[in-house]
């Protein structure tokens, strides 16, 4: 079956694609296949993939609509031949699954329309999702339909097949003997079934080596625990229990976590209304991250100075009886800062938390562990469990692998997933090394690794393949496919089974058999339950009791903590666009701006204003960075609040071998990243004199007007906790109602939809932007058009700096259509294409719009988006499968904007009516942005119901309307940003 689709797909494009699927239904192979799969019509549960395939064909039938463009196109209806359990045409199905990045899993629930996965949501049952996801998990759905995916088994670029590959492997395997020549290279995975297979392989080939490597990993965190407690452990934080959090170069709200959990827990402590006092966050960091933006106090420090800071802090806290020698570099301002922090921490023993980022060396993590121990936080705000993946120093393993390859000791090398040739340390020319052996690359797209390999195998998307994954705390989930592999790809699990010489090779059998062996008796019941709930009961790792002898550990690690050399250093961060390169071909992510720089379709060398002035560098000046005899070029960008003498670089750009979206986008910084400066290290900087065009979605970065120098109030409101307390006593200030030209509409009846956005919880992580893009079929316009100011995002994140340029504070403000009751856009539309619903939603009737853009001009919030060109013109047919069938795909020349996900409201309304005309419950309708938000910063509901969450929030004293004085009466109001400064530091 897969081969069939594959054959059709590989040589058919455009509209033919659907036809091919239908013609496919004619072939005898298809008949046999149906016979095989559907003897009775219900047994498809054996392989839920097949069920979806048939649905896919049916969806294909509906896809035929309007092929003939006459006045009345003849449409065909292709009902299923035989029923599918639980499937009702027009009703989406939801399946629980889980995906992982860098060994950290998140539980998901995927919505499928007619067999097409179309939307990802978080799984509320999963401890690291809690119902939310991050932007990347939202964007995975687009990768599934990426037309540039690897589609064909190839041998050195020549068309081949799985059968040929398998026979090749059997032959090669027969020569392997004890496997001394066998190497397997894969990304970090926490998968029980795969671990079992690893064991089998190790047994079969005792001298083979399985190397795990990720460009972004937790190695140093685990190693730090080993130094402190003598065993490799994974810290588990409880931010919701911490009154004081100190983050040392740790972007735990941003890219240093792959999950929503820390944000959920942290945000829970930023809502004074819920009774618990506001927590206080100190951030010490080189780059200005979203964590730094949330911090109540922020100290700029180079990555290499963090060790000194940690030591100084340790001494202030007197973690060991022994006097600590402190490294220089902790300047006057730092001393004051650290003294205050230490005092604060000591005042919150057992309710505080200090943590360090994965970039910091193991010694710093050990030190931090001791600090937490001294503060009595162990078991309170931080506990340790065994890591869900095999702990190993992947850099050492990779170095070893390189040696073996160079020496020709490797006969067969499997690269199972990821893109090692692109992302491995630059000490070696990996493409060369790969060519020295029989390399087998299992790759999702035709990437650098694929190009360097002998055998090139298409990898299945996580939504296409069976598997199982562990979360960071060990909680296991079944990875359930949503659709048959579109291009006949296979998963790493299946290849591993092949290597291990297992008879059964289908992912389903592998996973099922593993868990059956675990469960024994009531396996069937537990299996169904695991699939249904998306988490497997009782798989969470217990906390390990740990105790360290501080003095001894300190004596051991202190020599390793070196004073930082002066001069410029480079730090490598994952990217908000491509993470480590894996999302390089994902247009949604490329076009979603970086939360701090607002940069799209690019990465840049971020540096502080002072450093830029010293180097005479401006935005867009191409820099040459060199270290260890390696050079890279990267355009500079000045980021207020960045640490001096430090340059932040984002990984995952400048992909040479990539799909049409990501090829050549940005600049590859991996070329500078060797083992020595894997996370950070000194570098030489030189201006090349060349210029490069960087495009941002936000041109003016503060609320201070140029020319006048006045601050714009009534856009972002911000108080300290003290100010807010005083304000709260006076109660919410109500503006005196101005007189209106037009008669008032009576909004007192029925549902009146409204939204409250909590600026104190929003961390600006972009999840809402991508979720909205996925839900509302929002097109991508590309770098050039964004540069012209034509991006289409319905919800955007405005980021405003305040304070002095060198060390500012930042506020994030999600801004979508605020649904004005007195909408300026409505009165000016000549054709009444935008009108107000009786429930207070400012509607867009696309089919009525003629595109005068008058509404856009008259919108004070500038949230309306115009289709300047036909953004959907060149969308490949397969890419169209991601479209949400409940939302119109807009044509060129019409205006569009946020409508509170009205399609979701109408769905729930009709459901409520069908269920005996009951009212819609509060929280039953979730907008896409609200549902995904890891900080629960967005609350939507019926403001006429005084008990609804949104109504309660709108009664808060910090609730305000943006540009209130314009009397547009927006339905979306904001909760002011609060800051909880340490009195000693103000």
């Amino acid at each position, binding site marked *: 079956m897969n081969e069939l689709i594959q054959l059709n797909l590989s040589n058919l494009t455009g509209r033919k694609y659907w036809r091919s699927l239908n013609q496919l239904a004619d072939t005898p192979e298809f008949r046999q296949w149906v016979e095989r799969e559907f003897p009775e019509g219900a047994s498809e549960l054996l392989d839920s993939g097949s069920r979806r395939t048939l649905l896919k064909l049916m969806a294909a039938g509906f896809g035929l609509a309007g092929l003939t463009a006459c006045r009345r196109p003849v449409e065909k209806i*292709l009902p299923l031949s035989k029923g599918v359990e639980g499937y009702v045409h027009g009703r989406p199905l939801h399946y629980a699954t889980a995906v992982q990045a860098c060994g950290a899993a998140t539980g998901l629930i995927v919505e499928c329309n007619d067999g097409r996965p179309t939307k990802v949501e978080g799984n509320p049952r999963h401890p690291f999702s809690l119902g939310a996801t991050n932007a990347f998990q939202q964007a995975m759905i687009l990768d599934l339909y990426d037309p540039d995916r690897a589609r064909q088994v190839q041998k050195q670029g020549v068309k081949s097949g799985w059968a040929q590959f398998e026979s090749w492997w059997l032959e090669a395997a027969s020569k392997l003997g004890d496997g001394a020549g066998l190497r397997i290279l894969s990304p970090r995975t926490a998968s029980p079934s795969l671990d079992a297979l690893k064991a089998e392989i190790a047994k079969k080939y005792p001298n083979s080596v399985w190397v795990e490597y990720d460009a972004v990993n937790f190695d140093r965190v685990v190693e730090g625990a080993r130094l402190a407690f003598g065993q490799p452990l994974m810290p588990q934080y409880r931010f919701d229990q911490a009154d004081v959090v100190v983050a040392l170069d740790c972007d735990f709200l941003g890219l240093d976590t792959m999950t929503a959990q820390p944000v959920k827990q942290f945000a829970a402590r930023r809502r004074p209304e819920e009774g618990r006092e506001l927590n206080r966050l100190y951030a010490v960091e080189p780059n200005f991250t979203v964590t730094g933006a949330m911090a109540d106090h922020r100290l700029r420090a180079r990555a290499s100075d963090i060790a000194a800071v940690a030591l100084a802090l340790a001494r202030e806290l007197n973690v060991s009886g022994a006097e600590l020698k402190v490294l220089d570099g902790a300047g006057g301002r730092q001393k004051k800062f650290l003294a205050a922090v230490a005092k604060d921490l000591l005042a919150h023993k057992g309710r505080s938390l200090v943590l360090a980022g994965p970039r910091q060396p193991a010694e710093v993590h050990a030190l931090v562990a001791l600090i937490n121990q001294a503060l009595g936080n162990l078991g309170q705000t931080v506990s340790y469990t065994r890591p869900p993946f095999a702990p190993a120093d992947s850099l050492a393993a990779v170095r070893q692998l390189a040696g073996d390859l160079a020496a020709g000791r490797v006969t067969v090398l499997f690269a199972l997933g990821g893109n090692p040739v692109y992302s491995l340390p630059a000490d070696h020319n990996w493409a060369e090394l790969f060519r020295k052996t029989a390399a087998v690359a299992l790759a999702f797209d035709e990437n650098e690794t694929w190009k360097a390999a002998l055998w090139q195998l298409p990898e299945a998307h996580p939504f296409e393949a069976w598997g199982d994954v562990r979360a960071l705390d060990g909680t296991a989930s079944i990875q359930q496919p949503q659709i048959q592999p579109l291009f006949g790809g296979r998963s790493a699990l299946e290849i591993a089974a092949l290597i291990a010489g297992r008879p059964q090779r289908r992912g389903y059998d592998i996973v099922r058999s593993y868990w059956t062996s675990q469960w024994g008796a009531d396996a069937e019941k537990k299996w169904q339950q695991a699939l249904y709930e998306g988490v497997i009961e009782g798989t969470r790792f217990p906390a390990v009791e740990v105790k360290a002898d501080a003095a001894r550990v300190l004596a051991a690690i202190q020599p390793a903590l070196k004073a930082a050399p002066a001069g410029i250093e480079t730090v490598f961060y994952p990217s908000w666009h491509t993470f480590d390169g894996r999302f390089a071909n994902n247009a949604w992510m490329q076009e979603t701006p970086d939360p701090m720089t607002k940069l799209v379709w690019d990465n840049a060398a971020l540096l502080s204003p002072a450093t830029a002035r010293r180097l005479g560098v401006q935005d867009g000046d191409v820099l040459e960075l060199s270290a260890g005899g390696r050079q890279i070029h990267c355009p500079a960008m000045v980021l207020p609040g960045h640490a001096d003498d430090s340059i932040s670089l984002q990984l995952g750009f400048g992909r040479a071998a990539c799909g049409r979206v990501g090829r050549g986008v940005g600049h590859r910084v991996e070329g500078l990243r060797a083992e020595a400066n894997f996370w950070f290290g000194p570098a030489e900087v030189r201006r090349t004199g060349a210029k490069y065009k960087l495009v941002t979605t936000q041109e003016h970065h503060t609320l201070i007007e140029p020319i006048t120098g006045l601050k714009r109030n009534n856009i972002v409101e911000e108080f300290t906790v003290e100010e807010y307390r005083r304000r709260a006593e006076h109660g919410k200030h109500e503006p005196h109602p101005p007189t209106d030209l037009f008669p008032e509409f009576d909004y007192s009846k029925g549902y009146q939809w409204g939204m409250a956005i909590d600026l104190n919880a929003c961390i600006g992580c972009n999840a809402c932007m991508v979720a909205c893009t996925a839900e509302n079929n929002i097109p991508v316009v590309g770098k050039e058009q964004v540069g012209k100011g034509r991006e289409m995002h319905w919800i955007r994140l405005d980021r405003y700096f305040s304070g002095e340029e060198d060390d500012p504070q930042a506020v994030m403000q999600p801004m979508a259509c605020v649904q004005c009751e007195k909408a300026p856009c409505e009165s000016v539309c000549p054709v009444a294409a935008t009108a107000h619903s009786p429930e207070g939603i400012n509607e867009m009737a696309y089919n009525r719009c003629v595109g005068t853009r008058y509404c856009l001009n008259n919108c004070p919030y500038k949230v309306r988006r115009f289709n300047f060109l036909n953004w959907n013109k060149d969308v490949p047919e397969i890419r169209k499968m991601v479209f949400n069938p409940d939302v119109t795909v807009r044509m060129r020349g019409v205006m569009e904007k946020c409508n509170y996900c009205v399609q979701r409201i109408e769905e729930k309304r*009709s459901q409520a009516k069908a269920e005996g005309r009951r009212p819609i419950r509060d929280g039953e309708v979730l907008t896409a942005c609200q549902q995904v938000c890891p900080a629960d910063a967005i609350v939507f509901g019926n403001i006429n119901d005084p008990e609804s969450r949104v109504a309660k929030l709108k009664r808060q004293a910090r609730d305000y309307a943006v540009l209130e004085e314009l009397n547009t009466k927006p339905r979306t109001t904001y909760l002011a940003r609060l800051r909880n400064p340490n009195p000693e530091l103000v």
Partner: protein
Amino acid sequence: MSAPFSKRFDTKLRLAAAAAVAVLGAAGAVAAYVFHPRQLDTGYTPVQPVAYSHKLHAGNLGMDCLYCHTTVTQASYAAVPMTEICMNCHVRVKEKSPKLQAIRDSYATGKPVAWVKVHRLPDYVYFNHRAHVTAGVSCVSCHGRVDQMTEVRQVQPLSMAWCLDCHRNPAPHIRPPELVTKLDWQPEGDPAVLGARLIREKGIHPPDNCSACHR
């Protein structure tokens, strides 16, 4: 110098002008009538791959609409039945009939029967059967007496104005939900009176704002 035009010319000119106005006006009126969906779309009766007769099944045999169109009460679509449903009876009834060959083939191969869509709405219109059927709008209101049709025919224009007529004055079209599939049902007395009562009791208020149908 001789006049360029005859004495009558002015009269002719005026007549010509008057005629032009009349012709244009008439043309406009005719166009407005002809291109109205009522003329353009109603009566559409495509030939179906299988000569299925609603008259026979729903009329003479008195099968309920919901027997085949199972999803109307659950989803926005009123799904055309799966081949399986046909075969529920036709494994025994007329199991040899050549007319049913296509059905049997479909059942054997799993290949769908390609029915031709009759009631077609534009892509930007989101009509929801569930909402209407549960509110007590009968099939007959939009589809006509299907139980009397050998071949299904579109009897209503399905135009926006036509939708709005009912949304702005639903009373004549509302009946007890359990009776929606009784196409021949007539209330004693004025349907509008009954409808008005049901509307009051169940709090039915059909929307006429844009996003009710356009999203």
